């Protein structure tokens, strides 16, 4: 009798297993078609760095050297001279070695004007590492190519279709800002 019950249990286990496997047929695969469909990365994901210009094309960076000082890998090199016509400094050289950069975004946190920002462009693979020794033109171009970037001071900013730079709405901001704002509005309503 025990043999028969063992056989029955084995058959039952086989049936359970095969039913479980068959359920998978109706589920969608979580595969992403990356080269054909761009993944929608979160705005705070640090994939690369860029140097943002103002809407009128002038430099947002004030050349305070805070990022150079904050960089733990020491990949940022800045040279500057005094502005002969007014206050502040002008940039001679702004290089980031993106090969040795460890993408900690300490420079982004240190920046007082949110000029250096993180962007979500991860398609940086190259046959020639020298293309990743980014100079100021490269960093400007990266910022012009991206439509959305992040810095802790200003949050997520987006470039609209007509070239204006605006702060993103709370739904696009990280850290659940929209959810944080919601109960406050409800309390005001009550």
């Amino acid at each position: 009798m025990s043999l028969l019950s063992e056989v029955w249990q084995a058959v039952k286990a086989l049936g359970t297993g095969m039913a479980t496997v068959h359920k998978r047929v109706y589920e969608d695969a979580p595969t992403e078609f990356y080269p054909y469909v761009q993944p929608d990365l979160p705005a705070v994901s640090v994939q690369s760095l860029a140097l943002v210009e103002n809407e009128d094309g002038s430099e947002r960076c004030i050349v305070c050297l805070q990022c150079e000082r904050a960089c733990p890998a020491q990949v940022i090199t800045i040279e500057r001279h005094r502005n002969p016509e007014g206050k502040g400094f002008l940039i001679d050289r702004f290089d980031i070695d993106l090969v040795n950069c460890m993408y900690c975004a300490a420079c982004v946190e240190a920046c007082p004007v949110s000029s250096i920002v993180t962007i979500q462009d991860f398609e940086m693979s190259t046959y020639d590492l020298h293309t990743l020794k980014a100079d100021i033109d490269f960093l400007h171009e990266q910022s012009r190519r991206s439509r959305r970037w992040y810095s802790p001071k200003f949050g997520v900013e987006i470039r609209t279709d007509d070239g204006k730079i605006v702060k993103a709405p709370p739904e696009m901001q990280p850290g659940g800002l929209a959810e944080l704002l919601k109960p406050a509005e409800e309390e005001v309503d009550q």
Partner: protein
Amino acid sequence: MSYIPIPEDRHFRIKRIGYDPGRSRPWLERLVYSLYVFAFWGFVIATYAGVPALFDALGWTAGWGYVVMRATQVVLLFLLSAVIALMLILALRKYLGKVQERYGPMHYGPAGGIQTVFDALKLLGKEDFVPAAADWLTFRLAPAVTFVSSFAIFAVVPFASGWTLADTNVGLIYLIAVSTLSTYGVLLGGVSSGNKWALVGALRAGAQMVSYEIPLALVFLSVAVWGGSLSLGRIVDSQMGLWNVVPLFIPFVLYVISSLAELKHIPFDFPEAESELIAGYNVEYSGMSFAFFFLAEFVELFLLPALIVVFFFGGWHGPLFGLEPGTLAAGALQSLYFTIKTAVWVWIFLWIRATLPRYRDDQLMEFAWKAMIPLALFGLVLAAYMRLIWR
């Protein structure tokens, strides 16, 4: 979020070739996948109805004309087996992908529809290599023996009433003889490779397949006793009222298990256990020699379920809608019923393959000798007894 395209001169640019879900064309995918089925059906009709009708019209029905007709049919069956292998490999890969929550082949043809054709072309282009430690003649002969012993089963499988190459009155004995031969192919291939993995795989295959031949032969005997004939056509005819699966349930279950072992399919895939033996007995084979092992495996994956249908599920039987039996339309419809039943059983075999883990080697032999053979003998005696009192 979208980026302005990367400048050509600065970055490595990804080549966007292959499957693009934005441009997917479901009707084309369905067409490509159903083309395999139509090719299969077309080859069956051409082999069993077209060629005899052609030779009848030409008047070549005796002597050498008969030999040429049979030879033409065999060539068509070889093409049919190639179609079966291409179709089943693709079905296996797509089904396993579906079960494991991924897409199978996606990049060649619509939804990967011609991936296996490219695989076959790749195997054709590869160097056919004989290792220095191998025994040349045996090494070369083994894939042929394996493929021929699988392919020879086609001779007695009836696709519709009268649609068989040889409706002999010793069909079952022929089946036992021929399917035992495939053990030789695997054994010779493994032993002659001069490779320790291949040797272990071949020894396992020998032990396993010889053990599981015995319940298989006993199941054949039960079917013969209950059907009252050794001819496969007569066995199918005897299931007109009631399919054999009801009276012969024990032999049916034993047949499914031992045909899984014959196929070297997953609960019994010791001869080619990937995690232990790399590829087992065919580890040293490459190019078309390997392709013939593969072809044999997938032809058997079609033929053993087909024999399940012949023995237990009424073969080609199905509603004929008033068509006269023996005509071309009736034969085509019957072969369609046979194909559908076989396809369901192939799917169940793939399902088992997707579900179960591998058995343990000592338990495998214990199961064969202590459980399956006594049960098969019991099933044989039961079939004989029921035959005595009911028929």
